[in-house]
């Protein structure tokens, strides 16, 4: 759980970095080049297989864990401890993860499927042809419903990471007080920056900050 979680965190860094290219102010050239690179080399293809395996493993482990842990208390309490003991999102990783799974299905069908199976229009940059991923994003994020669903997805990601980042390191055995303090602060800011980074994409397109 922790190992697959940390791998997915590493993937998010790359993903949010490439997305940030849409704000280069060059009509999407840099973004198209970067996303083409991510879809064109053998190394990336191998990493993609690893990523999918990681995601599936994480989901399966997560659901099994949730179901098993629930079975460890057969009679529910009449009055629950609730938020007096822990923050709600620390107890809702199964729910947040399921929301992310639903988001992922929508997200892959929006972007990964057309790009992977080459149904995108092409654009010529510096005399070379590239699939116009950028134009596709502009098209998808013109639908307000899609924008709202993406923002909900980003909120789920925020809370999943706010707990998951530090929990993964605790499970991996980081028990030194100084490192734990570092991990708490890093986890907090990482979750906020990454989630806002992703959320800014649909927002900037919808509000036409970029075109």
């Amino acid at each position, binding site marked *: 759980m922790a190992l697959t979680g940390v791998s997915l965190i590493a993937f998010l860094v790359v993903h949010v970095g490439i997305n940030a290219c849409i704000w280069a102010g060059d009509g999407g050239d840099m973004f198209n080049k970067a996303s083409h690179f991510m879809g064109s080399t053998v190394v990336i293809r191998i990493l993609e297989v690893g990523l999918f395996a990681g995601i599936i493993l994480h989901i399966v482990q997560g659901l099994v*864990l949730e179901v*098993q*842990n629930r*079975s*460890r*208390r*057969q*009679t*529910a*309490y*009449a*009055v*629950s*401890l*609730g938020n*007096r*003991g*822990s*923050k709600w999102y*620390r*107890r809702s*990783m199964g729910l947040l993860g399921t929301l992310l799974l639903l988001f992922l299905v929508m997200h892959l069908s929006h972007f990964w499927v057309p790009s992977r199976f080459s149904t995108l229009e092409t654009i010529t940059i510096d005399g070379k042809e590239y699939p116009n991923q950028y134009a596709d994003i502009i098209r998808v994020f013109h639908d307000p419903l899609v924008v709202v669903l993406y923002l909900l997805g980003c909120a789920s990601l925020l809370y999943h990471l706010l*707990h998951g980042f*530090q*929990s993964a*390191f*605790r*499970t*991996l*055995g*980081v*028990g030194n*007080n100084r490192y*734990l303090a570092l991990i708490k602060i890093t986890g907090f800011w990482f979750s906020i920056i990454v989630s806002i980074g992703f959320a800014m994409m649909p927002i900037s397109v919808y509000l036409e900050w970029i075109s």
Partner: protein
Amino acid sequence: MEHYSMNLTLKVWRQKNKDSKGDFETYKVENISSEMSFLEMMDVLNDRLIREGKEPIAFDHDCREGICGTCSMYINGRPHGPWHANTTCQLHMRAYKDGDTIVVEPWRAKAFPVVKDLIVDRSAFDRIIQAGGYISVNTGNAVDANSLPIEKEKADESFAAAACIGCGACVAACKNSSAMLFVSAKVSHLALLPQGAPERKTRVLNMIAQMDKEGFGACTNTQACESVCPKEISMTNIAKLNSEYIISGLTSR
């Protein structure tokens, strides 16, 4: 603080034995002094039930001074009641005011089956200790304490972990019914000391194996355990337990 008395409504879990279904029973108690402990208030109620010819409420208690860990009661949704770093026996009625309703439940966990009313069977903890929560030493004359120097920081940290009284509040509070805070306290306590070194690897592997066998859930670091622990055992011990477990798993034969 001003001394006062109060009338309360109690909703207490009653269950004849481990196989019966059990349900809440409502009791009115009157003239409870703010100076009484929670258990004394229960004694007053039981005294009345006995005089009325009814079955008194079964609950665990022993030391009544916060050190034995038997007084397991889940009070208004929190193990050991509302006070921080406190046991049920050290909870006093000044925590409540006239007219309050108090719901009292037993610890709920598959690994802690209800025996009767508020009493649960916590022998799973004993079996975890038996699996490795000890050091093997030759008994004989007590050795001189100063023959084995231990750094102050380690001694303090070990002592803080050793303060665990095995009450099970951590399991009761945890949404996963996980016993990791308890096990981590026991493992940290011994892993930090030279006396614990010879059995360090087998201890953690055997205790975790027993913990899983008993049917406790897996830790997801929700932090509920730490917030209710009467001895303020730190969750950092759980991370340390994880590293002990991983390293022992990779390096032991």
